[in-house]
Structures are given as C-alpha cells and as structure tokens.
C-alpha cells in the first residue's frame, strides 16, 4: 500500500471516531443537570412564551438526536452556529482561543524536547553514573510535582515577589517579544512533566540501541563515540519519542486547562470548562470536535513521520 492510500484509510477511520466523539459529547452534555435556558435567563422569571421562543431559536425544543443531526449537517458546511449564552458566533469564539492554546502547547512541547533530549542522551551515555541518577531523580521529581502548585509558586516568586515577569498576559499580540517573555512561566509549568517523560523514554530507548550490533560494528570501525551516538544511536532512539509526541498533544491540552487558569491565559481549556459549566452546547461541541481533530491529525502525522524515519515500516 502506498503512503497516500494509507493516509486515506487512516482518515476514513477517523471519521467514525470523530462522529463518536461528538455524539458522545452531545449525549454527555445533555446529561448535565440543568437547562441552558436557566443559564441564559439567569433565573429571572420569564413568560412561557418567551421561554418557548428562546428554545425554538436554538433548537432546544427538538429531541436530542434531531439536534445532533442538525448540528452535524451544519458542521459539514462548516457552520458552527451561534452560542445561546453569548449570542456570538461559535467559530469566531473558538477560533480566537485556538492560537493561544496552540502557542502555549507548542512552546511547552519544544521545551520538553529541548530539556528532555539532551538529558536523556547524557543519562544513557553515562549510564549508572551520578549524572544518570541525578537525571532520574529530576525526572521523577518533575512527574511528581502537581502542576498547579508549580505554576502558582513560579508566579508568586518571579511575578509577584521579584517582578521579573508579568502576572497576567501583556497587552501585546501573540507573536511579540513581550508575550514570549510572559509565556516563559506557563511554558515551564506545562512542559516540566513532559520533559521528564521524554528524558526517561529517550534514556531507555538509547540504552537499547547502544547494545545493538550495529553500534558495536560502528565502534569497531573506529568511528568516534560522538559520531556513533549522535548519528546512529540517537536517530533510532528518537523513534519512540516521536510516537509519544502525538499522544502528548492531548496531555498538553489537559495541562492547559489548569495552567490557563493560573496565568489568565485566554485559551481553549478555560473556554471549554466555562462552557461545560454554562451548558453552552455549541461551543463545547465545536471545541471538543476541534480537539478531537487535532489529536487524530497529530497521530496521523506521527505515523507518517515514523514511516519516513524508519524504512522498515511498510504499509
């Protein structure tokens, strides 16, 4: 099977998954106690006629499955509708938040690699030595620290006490120096655990590769150790790291829910939490769909990268 056909097959499998995700979300949010009308009118007394007309406006008077089909039909033409709670266009609302979350997630991911890869290499090369033990402890510590606590403490020390960075995002575009400086702390908060995982993963896969026959051959040929490790071992050892990367996306979105709240970051996580609590159906739907698509796409991308990196894989 060619790569193109493989991608097509994967995408066709993803469609029912995404349908499942949205259908599940739909039934899920309808199971939430309460009625979006309540959030909408804020428990004021409203005449029955008014309530009925509001319901009709957002199709809340139809059965759930009909609402769902209606929604799917609209999504197929990229029409996400209007939020009954804010009256704003859902696509615009979600579209505004997405770049912020992607920027933060991307930065955290880069940080994880920037810390995790070198540490992992050193730990593997100096296996059993103090550097190895130290990196293991550091990695475990990274995993064991609750991220909201880390975020608050960082904010308190560097934002409030020392005043080196702002406590809330600056009044600047996303792609600016001021914003980059502000993003430092949230990135560290979000990326620490991932960096720890990358370290440990890379170390173990490096160790496995270091034992491999081709490494002995390369060494026997008299290649410099540095070349052996960077050119041969690392390339192979990075494969599992690549696999994990795709899965990390969902993990980073989870973390974002917490980090966005501490750092007042206008991202998807906060939007989703608020929407769930307000029963803002269209926004939840669009958000979950978007996240689902990103996760599916990321995994697809990972598999393709994997295929390119490792010629042994055939489809």
């Amino acid at each position, binding site marked *: 099977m060619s790569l193109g056909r493989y991608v097509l097959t994967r995408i066709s499998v993803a469609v029912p998954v995404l349908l499942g995700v949205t259908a599940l979300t739909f039934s899920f949010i309808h199971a939430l106690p309460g009625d979006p009308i309540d959030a909408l009118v804020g428990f004021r007394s409203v005449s029955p006629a008014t309530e009925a007309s509001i319901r009709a406006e957002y199709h809340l008077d139809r059965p759930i499955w009909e609402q769902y089909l209606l929604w799917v039909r609209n999504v197929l033409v990229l029409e996400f509708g209007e939020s009954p709670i804010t009256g704003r266009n859902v696509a615009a609302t979600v579209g505004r938040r997405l770049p912020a979350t992607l920027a933060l997630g991307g930065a955290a991911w880069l940080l994880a690699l920037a810390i995790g890869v070198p540490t992992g290499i050193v730990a593997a090369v100096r296996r059993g030595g103090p550097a190895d033990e130290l990196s293991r402890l550091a990695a475990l510590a990274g995993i064991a620290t*609750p991220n909201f606590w880390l975020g608050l403490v960082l904010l308190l020390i560097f934002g409030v006490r020392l005043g080196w960075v702002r406590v809330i995002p600056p009044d600047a575009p996303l792609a600016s120096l001021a914003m980059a400086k502000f993003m430092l702390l949230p990135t560290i908060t979000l990326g620490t655990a991932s960096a720890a995982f990358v370290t440990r*993963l890379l170390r173990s896969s490096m160790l496995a590769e270091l034992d491999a026959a081709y490494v002995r051959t390369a060494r026997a040929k008299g290649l410099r150790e540095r070349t052996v490790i960077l050119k041969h071992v690392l390339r192979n050892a990075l494969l599992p790291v690549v696999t994990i990367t795709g899965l990390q996306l969902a993990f980073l979105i989870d973390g974002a829910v917490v980090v966005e709240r501490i750092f007042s970051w206008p991202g998807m996580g906060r939007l989703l939490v608020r929407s769930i609590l307000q029963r803002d159906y269209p926004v939840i739907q669009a958000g*979950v769909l978007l996240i689902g698509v990103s996760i599916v796409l990321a995994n697809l991308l990972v598999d393709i990268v994997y295929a390119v990196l490792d010629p042994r894989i055939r489809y």
Partner: protein
Amino acid sequence: MSDRQPTTDRGRIRIVGFDDADSDRPGDATSSDDGDGSLAATAEPPAGRTDRPTADTQSRTGPTAGASRSGTALEGPGSRSAGSWQRFRRDRTAMAGLTIIVVMAVLAVFARPIEVSTAEYTMTLQPVSLAPYDPAQPFVGPANAPPSWDHPFGTDWAGRDQFSRVLVGGRYTLTVGLVAVSLALGVGIPLGAIAGYFGGWVDEIIMRLVDVLYAFPFLILAIGTVAILGRGFWKLVVALVVTGWIGYARLLRGEVLSVREREYVTAARALGIPDRTIIRRHVVPNAITPVVVQATLNVGTVVLTAAALGFLGLGLEADTAEWGAMLSRGRDSLLQGHWHVTVFPGIAIFLFVLAINLVGDGVNDALDPHRDASDDRRRMR
C-alpha cells in the same frame, strides 16, 4: 529501569503446560542461543515490537533474559512471582519507595481510631490514635499558626492541626489512588482481553470506543463527569475510572493479540476448553505484566489528577483532609505568606507519587526486565 540483574542461571529446560501457562516472555525465547530448549521459543515477538529485527531483540535482551528464567523448571506460578519478588527486593530504590508507601499507609490507618457507628452505638475497630488532634476539629490552635511544638505542621485557616490532617489525609489519597486504579483495571482488563482474544467486530466496537475516549481531553471528560455526578469520593472515583480504563484495555489487547496465537492457547481451544476459561487461565496471566506495571505507575498519576480536579473546584468534598484538596484549597494562603498550609500536603503528595514511581520501575524490572515502563506510560496519560 535501573540496574538490570545479570544472572548465572542459564540453560534450563522449561516445560510449558496448560496450567503453568505463564511462561517466559516471548522476547526471551529468541535469546535461547545457549542451548535453551524452551518450547515457548516458537512464539512470535509481541505485537508492538514487530518492527524491530529479531537480531536486535536477541542481543538487547541477552543479559537480562536469564533473570526472568531464574526459577526452576517445574516451578508453579507462585514460585515465579517469588523470583520476581527476589529481584524486586534487590532493587534498593524500589524498596525505598515501597517503604515510604507502607509507612504512609500505616500512618494513615493508625492516625485516628476507626469506628463503626450505628444509630445507638459506636464500636471502635482500631483504637490507636497517632494524630494528636481530630483533623476536623476547628480551633485547636490559633488560625494559620506557623509550625510549633504543639502543631509541628502548623494550623490552617480554621485553627485545625495540620499534622493530624496530613496523617489522616493519607487515607483519602491512598484509597482514591488504589480504588480508582483497581476499578479501572476491573473494566479495562476484561474488555481488553475480550477485544484481543475474539477480534472481529467485538474488537472493532471496543477499540473504536477506546479511540473515541482517547480523542477526548481527559480533564474535560472528568470535569463533565463530576459536573453530572457532583463531588464526593465515589463520584471522583467514577470520573477517574471512566477515563482510566481505556489505557489498560488498549495495552492488554495488544499483548493478548500475540498471546492468543501461541501453541498452548491453540491447543486449549482444540481441546474444547471454553473461551472464558482460556482467557482467564491462559491468556490474561500471560499478557498482564505490562498492565500491572502501568497500573502501579498510574496510582501516582491518578492522585495528581485528583489534585488537579480539586484545583478546578471539582473532586472530593470541600474541606476533606485529602492532600490534593488541602493543597488546592490552601493556595490563597501562598500569597498571604502562610507557606506551611500548602507545603506539608504538597510534600506528602510529592513523596507518594515519587515512591509509586520508584515501585513501578521496580515492579517493571522485576516482572519484565527488558521492557521499559516509560514506553507505555505516555500512552496511558
């Protein structure tokens, strides 16, 4: 994942019977270069590793393979786990982790008396009380007092003794971790085994469900669950189980896929043994190792997740002396300079998760020396 144990035990002949089906991992079999007559040698490498050339596996697992074969030829499953236990005990860091957990558990159990109360009478089951105060009793000291001799960890906003609260808090934290993981295993193992063993449309349905849940951000799912059910111990556990089982199911299914083609399974099927029995007695025991390792590590993850949910205003009841709840509830006091309110529960969580990870690594090395735990960990989230 640290020191792998080289061993001198080599070249044993292994007889693989239907009952003693928990033979070696297939990877070991390929390393039978020094005259190992293992019947299991016919098995294929596990699914996830098919992409690697066998030669690699052989040399890679060489030094460690013997370790998992240290038992004698005819030993039963019990003595095999005894072998694993031996290996585990030699792992100093893992033992240190285990010690921390045991100490925490003992402290939690003996922190306050355990009583069973009916309408008329109260019966004490466990009379020991290590904690100096009732953790829920307000104003046993001044509010927000820093650590002192009377209150070694200080007091919180309501003048409750933090030391007592941290001790008793272990009960909640440890049980949340343990119960949530056990229940998730209870859902994930059967589903994973069924999916892997039967294949076909059953597999298709279960795995698509898993895929769907995977495409959900975990916390969003958990927040929704808690929003539907409300707060409380069991509700929190449900939220953690709903999101926790998928990882085990997926992991086990992968293992089962390779196990089900082995000779003893085919033979058992040919003998007409019911599928249920085959799954229970032959398939699952042989495929369970990575799941066990994963589950151990996840106890820590679950505890951290519970704390994160607490931060978002979900999770256990308000003011429960649970570590995560104490940590997230006390966060305002960070700014007011009452550092002790969050530091002690924070340290407790940190130590616990650290210990769980050490134990998890140890279990991994002991049960399955050539697999690395972190390999699967990220899949589990």
